[in-house]
């Protein structure tokens, strides 16, 4: 059984038909419930629900405070390498982009870790492009073991692995897996992933499940907003998260809402998501998934992120760079352009000003 079976039950046409027929009464009824059905979740992503953003925000805020408190966990990404064999039209690491490629040596990983550790961050997310030649699982494992000395939680956002490979990394101290489907609509997926192993839609779709079975403590999913119609992508993201929560009770399932950012290459996204729509997605996901962590990266600008603190987000990255080794050096080409360039200290101060407690540590590696 795979989420694909669930995905296949809905055609984009049927979903659009349903949400375009959602009425105000359906939205209001959904907002009165504690636990939403699939149809009620869809109703919150409808055009009709666009008139209820304030009510959705009040509910999402109250649910998040009750479940998580007024706290935001801070983390940062660390790019280990940008070698990649895939041709993804939306990514600077596309194999055809003429950027100098690099990979951190273990010494450089440790130097980067020391720099990041000075900020008092304890949660780190390591990323690479997809290249089993340059960044095999053994390399990821070695880096994770170095980073475990400096951080309480080490998560990975790399190419999809087999279950035994995830198990190997869990044994080495990795406790979190982030893997975005990028785009759930299969036809669009094949259009934006031109060539390379990432073209395998099903292998990627099933990766979160393999991570859960391998014992990953947290598993985070999401779609890259802007590649396909945002309502359908948000729907599938939410349904995928609910499916994983229902099937893998032992894992903490989280979700992210990354919006596409400027990058190298000529691809122009056809489905840019405006701020109002982004907020509707965030609120609908929060109300549908009361226990899911929701992570917000520095793809979003500072002022926008400040407002989103109240709207269901539980984790935020800070002091970010998408450049390989960017925490220790300045030059280099990143995966995408960061929007919120504030330091960890600045983001921490912002969270205090918003009346929330920034949390640096929420896991003890055991």
């Amino acid at each position: 059984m795979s989420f694909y079976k669930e995905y296949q039950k809905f055609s984009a046409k049927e979903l659009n038909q349903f949400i375009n027929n959602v009425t105000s009464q359906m939205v209001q009824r959904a907002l009165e419930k504690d636990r939403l059905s699939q149809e009620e979740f869809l109703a919150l992503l409808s055009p009709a629900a666009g008139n209820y953003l304030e009510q959705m925000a009040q509910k999402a805020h109250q649910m998040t405070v009750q479940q998580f408190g007024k706290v935001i966990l801070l983390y940062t990404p660390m790019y280990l390498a940008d070698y990649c064999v895939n041709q993804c039209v939306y990514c600077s690491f596309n194999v055809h982009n003429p950027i100098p490629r690099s990979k951190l040596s273990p010494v450089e990983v440790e130097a980067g870790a020391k720099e990041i550790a000075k900020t008092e961050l304890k949660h780190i997310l390591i990323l690479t492009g997809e290249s089993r030649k340059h960044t095999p699982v053994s390399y990821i494992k070695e880096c994770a073991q170095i980073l475990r000395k400096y951080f309480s939680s080490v998560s990975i956002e790399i190419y999809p692995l087999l279950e035994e490979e995830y198990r190997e990394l869990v044994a080495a101290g990795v406790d979190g897996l982030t893997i975005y489907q990028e785009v759930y609509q299969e036809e669009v997926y094949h259009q934006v992933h031109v060539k390379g192993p990432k073209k395998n839609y099903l292998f990627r779709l099933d990766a979160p499940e393999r991570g859960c079975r391998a014992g990953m403590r947290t598993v985070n999913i999401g779609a890259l907003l802007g590649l396909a119609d945002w309502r359908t992508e948000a729907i599938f993201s939410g349904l995928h998260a609910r499916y994983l929560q229902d099937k893998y009770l032992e894992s903490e399932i989280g979700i992210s809402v990354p919006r596409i950012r400027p990058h190298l290459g000529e691809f122009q996204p056809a489905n840019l998501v405006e701020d109002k729509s982004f907020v509707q997605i965030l609120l609908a996901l929060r109300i549908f998934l009361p226990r899911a962590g929701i992570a917000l990266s520095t793809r979003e600008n500072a002022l926008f992120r400040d407002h989103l603190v109240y709207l269901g987000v539980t984790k935020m990255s800070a002091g970010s760079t998408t450049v390989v080794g960017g925490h220790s050096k300045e030059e280099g080409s990143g995966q995408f352009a960061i929007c919120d360039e504030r330091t960890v200290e600045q983001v921490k101060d912002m969270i205090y000003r918003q009346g929330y407690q920034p949390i640096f540590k929420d896991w003890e590696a055991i």
Partner: protein
Amino acid sequence: MVDKLVIGGRELENRLFVGTGKFANHHLITESINRSGAQVVTMALRRVDLKVRQENVLNFIPKDCVLLPNTSGARTAEEAVKIARIARDSGCGNWVKIEVISDHKYLLPDNYETIRATEILVSEGFVVLPYMSPDLMVAKRLAEVGAAAIMPLGSPIGTNRGLKTKELIRILIEEIKLPIIVDAGIGKPSEAAEAMEMGAAAVLVNTAIATADDPAMMGEAFSLAVRAGRMAYLAGPGATKIYAEASSPLTGFLS
């Protein structure tokens, strides 16, 4: 005679235990504890960072409180045992609240893993307070293996739904000779009073205080409610039993 709760050799006058998660600001933790007079304070070891002076939640817990580290994050008995040992080695004392949850949908505890963890940690000299789903057989087993108290949930963590498991808790209070401390789900001071009126030894409250608009005031409200409920329990029919009584108080006149 002051009514005291004795656990692990400690005498406690305040029967409100408080948690430290979810507060909007660590300073509010201190204010809430001081205003409520709570003497036992739980914290998740996963949030404790002894290397960082400023943000370490331990710095905000008054020094005369009893620390009750919880094993939040543990999915198995082995993980709970490891966390407890780390807590003790880090200077958090030898009390531990066992929280073994492998269900992230409802956050319900795994009673069987909780029994196993209790047995191991009792043998290592911990004062063990296990958090559990109210089940009489499980509570009996926890008592047998040496738990210092039993902490049944009122409703699932964070739901603030009150004493949904009231009847099961009542049975535990009747049958188990250990302090029964109602934990999780208490959303209002009246619900804390209700638990104490039934005969609970104490209650643990986190979400309802931490997420209140005025956590310090809510902490005080809970403390007053716990005292009121305890007094009501002592003042009720059961209270006469602490004094010597005639063996047939109502029909003794017939002999």
